């Protein structure tokens, strides 16, 4: 069974640009979560999608947005990139709205120059 896959592995952008990160969940999982892990910090929750709808978002500005497609894959979009957006972005998936462990991808390393 394939795990959670994220692309690209690395992404280099400059300030003010826009970035799109992609995630494919484990087959059968309907929930996708996005986290940001900045250097020296823990995982900060960004967004949760379930059944194509945004169900919850963390304490991040609106320029962080995303969507979930009918096949449950997801995109994270970050507009007007700032230097402090440089971080590892992790995607995780799980079964629906139940208390189950999340399974993570290996992340996208976003670097802002």
């Amino acid at each position, binding site marked *: 069974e394939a795990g*959670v896959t*994220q692309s690209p592995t690395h992404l280099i952008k400059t300030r003010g640009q826009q970035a799109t990160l992609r995630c494919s969940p484990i087959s059968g999982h309907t929930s996708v*979560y996005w*986290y940001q892990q900045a250097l*020296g*910090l*823990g*995982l900060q*929750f960004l967004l*949760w999608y379930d059944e194509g709808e945004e*169900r*919850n978002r963390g304490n991040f500005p609106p320029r962080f947005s995303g969507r979930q497609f009918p096949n449950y894959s997801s995109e994270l979009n970050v507009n007007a990139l700032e230097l402090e957006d440089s971080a590892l972005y*992790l995607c*995780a998936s799980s079964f629906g*709205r*139940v*208390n*189950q*462990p*999340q*399974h*993570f*991808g*290996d*992340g996208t390393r976003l670097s802002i120059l």
Partner: protein
Amino acid sequence: DQQVKQNSPSLSVQEGRISILNCDYTNSMFDYFLWYKKYPAEGPTFLISISSIKDKNEDGRFTVFLNKSAKHLSLHIVPSQPGDSAVYFCAASEPSGGSYIPTFGRGTSLIVHP
């Protein structure tokens, strides 16, 4: 304010001995707790979880203990192996409007040396 705290950024243990990783939380509504392990350049991997109705859960070399009155949980690894060297994240979640989004600690880096 951090609701999940891992106060030890790092821990060094000799191979074969016990590793004890600690985690404290402040939110009394948390009812599900998890430990993840993360190797460099990889995503976190789920290790073990515990519900608040239990005080202990075992899976092979890994045991998680939960002390609800102290709002404290710990992960015991016995015996420790060099391959256990990784960053360990504690996480906790509460049921809230149908969501179970865990709050993560900042991690403890475990080094197991031969």
